[in-house]
């Protein structure tokens, strides 16, 4: 068999596993998109909230909690982490990126404290993926069904929410905080709630990941933010972001396409250690593209920095 046939066959064999993984990680991408796009609040909390959700879920499962309870507690922990980042930014006027780095760094210690060690196996514990009737537990099909259904449900609920009176107000805070305030909207409450929600999604992704892979690890979030950003950019390139629905669908579409691309690269023989470099270069290219297109020298580059 030639190179292409080998690559293709191993890529095709990986599709179901990758699809399951991308549905789970689409929640992290959602947790990155909401601060960046809905609230204009560049945020890095997800890099810490993802392993936080994983660690909390792992400890809960090991303690005998039901898979759903474990996820619920992980969501609450992620929500609290997001709220902290937003509060630090609002109260002490620390740049949101720095606030996110502070929380992310502190969460590393918190995660270690929660688990008491750097990794924890929960293999053999019940998971939400066991509940699909007619499918053998633990196989990609059940993960695809469960994670896919949750993704769809979250997408629909978020779309409905952002079209309500409250949801419209939250979007206004992201669009123009001065105007939002002048229209009687509590900018603090909307920002803290919104970033908290994003943290909860990231942590939820971590919790599902732990149930899917059977172990929790404090290092499981390493580089997740750049992966998520890459996925978000691919998603936005495909769905656009002109309407609320398109913007909300971007993380899901992006996660699916991004992880298939990664799988294709690996199938083609790319050494896994190079993956982060490749992803970083990809994100850089996507960020640089607008200024290259409008190339009028350094001035154009300065414009796009705002992204």
């Amino acid at each position, binding site marked *: 068999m030639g190179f292409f046939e080998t690559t293709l066959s191993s890529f095709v064999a990986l599709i179901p596993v990758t699809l399951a993984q991308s549905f789970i990680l689409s929640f992290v991408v959602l947790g990155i998109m909401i601060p960046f796009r809905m609230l204009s609040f560049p945020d890095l909390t997800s890099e810490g909230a993802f392993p936080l959700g994983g660690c909390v879920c792992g400890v809960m499962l090991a303690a005998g909690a039901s898979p759903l309870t474990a996820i619920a507690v992980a969501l609450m922990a992620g929500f609290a982490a997001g709220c902290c980042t937003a509060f630090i930014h609002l109260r002490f006027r620390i740049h949101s990126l720095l606030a996110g780095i502070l929380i992310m760094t502190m969460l590393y210690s918190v995660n270690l404290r929660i688990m008491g060690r750097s990794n924890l196996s929960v293999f053999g514990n019940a998971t939400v993926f066991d509940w699909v009737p007619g499918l053998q537990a633990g196989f990609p099909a059940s993960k695809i069904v469960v994670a896919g259904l949750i993704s769809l449900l979250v997408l629909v609920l978020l779309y409905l929410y952002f079209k309500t*009176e409250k*949801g419209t*107000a939250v979007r*206004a805070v992201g*669009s123009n905080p001065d105007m939002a*305030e*002048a229209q*009687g909207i509590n900018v603090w409450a909307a920002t803290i709630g919104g970033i908290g929600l994003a943290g909860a999604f990231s942590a939820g992704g971590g919790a599902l990941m732990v149930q899917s892979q059977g172990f929790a690890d404090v290092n499981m979030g390493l580089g997740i933010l750049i992966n998520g950003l890459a996925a978000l950019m691919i998603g936005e390139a495909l769905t656009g972001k002109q309407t609320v629905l398109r913007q909300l669908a971007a993380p899901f579409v992006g996660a699916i396409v991004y992880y298939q691309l990664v799988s294709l690269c690996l199938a083609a023989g790319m050494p896994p250690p190079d993956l982060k470099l490749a992803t970083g270069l990809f994100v850089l290219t996507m960020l640089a593209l607008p200024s290259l297109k409008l190339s009028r020298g350094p001035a154009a580059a300065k414009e796009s920095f705002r992204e």
Partner: protein
Amino acid sequence: MLEIQSARKVFYKGQADEKVALDGLNMSLKTGEFGVVIGSNGAGKSSMLNAISGSLVLDTGKILINGDDVTPMPVHKRAARLARVFQDPMRGTAASMTVAENMLLADLRAKKRTLRPGLNAARLAAYKERLSVLGLGLENRLNTKVELLSGGQRQSLSLIMAVGGSPELLLLDEHTAALDPRTADIVMQATIRTVEALKLTTLMVTHNMQHAVDFGDRVVMLDAGKVRLEIAGDEKTNVTVTDLIGHFSVKTDRMLLAS
């Protein structure tokens, strides 16, 4: 209706560039009255508006609206009572949202926001009607994002948003200053029409002496954070641009003598 009692605000207190923005300012506005505020740059006009809307916290003094002390209230709480049109058309609207969504946000300014769908047929029809008053065709662009509108259209939209729901107090912060003369005129005419039709209590800051002469029941001239001059009643009816500019130069002479 509106009462400002010995409002004082000092920026950079205790530093070399200390600046007294409001120096024991006293001012009041009766219900239904249209006040026009003039004054040179740095006289305290913007500080006064910011103090009323809540984005500037006073060092000492009080702000009362309809007898209620609003001094400790944050901006978003005061928004239930007052509406403001900013000088910069970009500041008063949410650019990445549609015309209808902006109208909705203004519509809910004094109301409790619920989890019901925001835009419905009844609301869209009402917004369409309110926008048609302008005659700018905005009523047919409800689903257009505001960032695609011109400065004049955005400012007109801000005005319609502000006067909707008849706020207790309308603040106009040089709201035609950033527009070309023709558009400024359209926005100003629309302002006067709606203020008169809805009998809104209005406070307008302007650098345009002609506007100060033509509109309003009372002219207040600020200087160094205090009221320097008030013209009302018959005197206001008969005042000319030359008179007003005369007062500016008197003030300037005094400043020269003082220095």
